[in-house]
């Protein structure tokens, strides 16, 4: 056991001391922060990209003016011109698009056209459609003898609040936050498996092709060498994630200090009340989640998933030689369930209790990722227990089998063994 510690120490420190570790550890949060900054910048400057539309209103639907809350769109009415004449001119007159409203039948409104040089975005089309619908509705109300102002007073606009009842009392749910938490946890586990799994594989192949494996296994058991490598690299991954999380928390506090007026700007820019209370909504949404359960489950599946796959990656690394193409072929069947797990997770976030989601969160090769998709919802205790037991069992089984493949593979040179050959090694007695 003392020797496993030495192996872990070597795997850990040689990687952590590398310059590339420092670079990725610092660059990744910077990229993420840059991404945030870009989003904020877009939110703030969203209004700068003004679009002006020309309108020929032959039906006189709008009475010469359109009121809109959206400040990035403006409408200009063109008098004494026909659709045919103006189609060739609107661009030169500085309009990005041209809305033509022909005389129409109030019972059956149709033939409205929006001319443009390139496809108009869906949001813009939708908001113009809404404006036209509203105008037509008003006209119809008047035709029925109803005052549109009175109708507006009558119309109801209810927003539904979802409250989750727990023993501690009602909490407000926020589907978006739950979704984001699930997604982030799933992505992290997915990344851990693939990035650090392939690192284990490369490390093993390196030891094999450098022929150092032979020197080492004359002093340590091959299994200790394999586990030492897996644990050491796993610890590197945990360190990296921990640094990222700490950096991000620090940034959250530091940003308002560095740019004091940024937040207020964001709030000003978001003129409608929905996004103004976004921050409070997120906080509320987070507090509605079973945080302890999520954190514990995340750590369990994070480590369990990594360990289960790392041993497979180690076995693959032990059977290939320098040729990276060989590795590619063997890695594919191992990557399949990981990717499958990710796909099922995306579905499980929306349908946490579908049969597929339940199966995916129990099946040990996909459960670490899929379970994250369901984690913000109530999961029956038996499902959680079965999933965890299966994962642990799978880890032991796989490590035992792959350990045998590893032990044989690491000292074999020359031809790459096939799956059949590897299975033979795995199930051999001694």
């Amino acid at each position, binding site marked *: 056991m003392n020797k496993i510690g*030495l192996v872990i120490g*070597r795997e850990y420190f040689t990687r952590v001391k590398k310059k590339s570790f420092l670079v990725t550890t610092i660059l990744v949060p910077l990229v993420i922060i840059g991404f945030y900054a870009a989003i904020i910048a877009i939110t703030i400057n969203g209004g700068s990209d003004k679009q002006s539309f020309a309108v020929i209103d032959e039906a006189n639907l709008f009475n010469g003016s359109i009121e809109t809350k959206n400040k990035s769109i403006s409408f200009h009415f063109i008098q004494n011109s026909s659709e045919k004449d103006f189609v060739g001119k609107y661009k030169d007159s500085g309009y990005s698009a041209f809305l033509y409203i022909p005389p129409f039948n109030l019972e059956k409104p149709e033939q409205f056209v929006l001319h443009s040089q390139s496809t108009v975005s869906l949001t813009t089309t939708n908001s113009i459609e809404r404006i036209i619908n509203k105008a037509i509705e008003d006209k119809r109300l008047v035709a029925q003898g109803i005052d549109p102002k009175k109708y507006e007073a009558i119309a109801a606009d209810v927003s539904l609040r979802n409250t989750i009842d727990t023993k501690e009392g009602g909490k407000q749910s926020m589907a978006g936050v739950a979704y984001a938490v699930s997604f982030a946890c799933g992505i992290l586990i997915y990344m851990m498996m693939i990035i650090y799994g392939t690192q284990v594989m490369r490390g093993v192949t390196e*030891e094999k092709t*450098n*022929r150092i494996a*032979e020197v080492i296994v*004359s002093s*340590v058991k091959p299994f200790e060498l394999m586990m030492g490598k897996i644990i050491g690299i796993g610890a590197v991954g945990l360190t990296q994630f921990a640094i990222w999380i700490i950096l991000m928390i620090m940034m959250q506090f530091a940003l308002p200090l560095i740019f004091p007026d940024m937040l207020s700007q964001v709030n000003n820019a978001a003129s409608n009340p929905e996004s103004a209370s976004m921050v409070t909504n997120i906080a509320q949404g987070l507090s509605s989640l079973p945080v302890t359960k999520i954190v514990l489950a995340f750590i369990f599946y994070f480590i369990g998933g990594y360990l289960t796959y790392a041993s497979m990656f180690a076995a693959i690394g032990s059977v290939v030689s320098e040729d990276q193409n060989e590795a590619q072929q063997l890695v594919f069947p191992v990557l399949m369930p990981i990717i499958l797990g990710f796909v099922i997770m995306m579905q499980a976030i929306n349908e946490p209790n579908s049969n597929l989601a339940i199966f995916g969160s129990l099946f040990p090769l996909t459960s670490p990722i899929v379970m994250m998709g369901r984690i913000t919802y109530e999961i029956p205790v038996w499902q959680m227990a079965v999933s965890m037991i299966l994962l642990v069992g799978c880890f032991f089984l796989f490590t035992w089998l792959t350990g045998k493949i590893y032990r044989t593979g690491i000292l074999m040179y020359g031809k790459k063994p096939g799956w059949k050959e590897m299975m033979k090694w795995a199930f051999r007695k001694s």
Partner: protein
Amino acid sequence: MNVLELQNIKKYFATQKAVDDISMTIGQGNIFGLLGPNGAGKTTLLRMITGIFYPDSGQILFDGKKFNALDDARNIGYMPEERGLYKKMKIGEQALYLARLKGLSRSEAMDSIKKWFVKLEMESWWNKNVEDLSKGMSQKLQFVTTVLHKPKLIILDEPFSGLDPVNANLIKDEIFNLAKNGSTIIFSTHRMEQVEEICNHIVLVNKGKKILDGTVHEVKQRYKDNVYQLGATVLPEHLMTHIFEIVKHEPGRLLLKLQEGTTSNDVLKYFINQGIVIHSFHEVLPSLNDIFIKLVEGTSNARAFQNV
């Protein structure tokens, strides 16, 4: 006392009998040559002695006790034929790591590393990476990491390949020193002139079987052809005799092979009676190289072996 004793060791792989019933004993302080053509089973045998493989049957005794790979790892140093070191690891750290894997404490390991680095003039390497070293330099480093923990049994698979004569001599002297201080050395190689120079006991394996075992002197005696070399000032062109046959006839030098039942004295008598003035006469023992080729030739593996 025997450091290592192999009793009827067998190791079969799917396609071949890599080691097929080999027994041998190696006494303490010996420099033991393990010879054989490529694919004879040497590496498999060595891997069983280092505990990397388990024999299918048979027993290995180390220091008189049943060999246990984990406990005895500390007493064995193994330098495989294909050298291996971590390329991107500092040399000092690497030596320390390998020594500690053998069971040395940090301070013991440091002392030993310093001693060896000074001895082989490697002090300045400590903070270099292995990838910065030339092939010969990394060979030296590999040798040092093999003997750092003062093992009782040192196994060297082709230790001189890639070393220049100066460094090869340096390592050779260290090997003699280690043997003098009580370490036993197993030396596996194809290079027969090195074996003659260094080893005092040899075993030849071919196709998984032991075909020769003995001290270098014994082996040479056993395989000698009764060939003698005679030097004389003037030698007659034609020598008619039934007591020897001529192997080679050069001016002033004669290589002759005794016939069955004759002795070297008969030869001398013959020449003296002829009135020829002899100034040298000695037996020519076969070189290990000749013996090796003679024993291995004709088997299917012989072609794979390169005569050095």
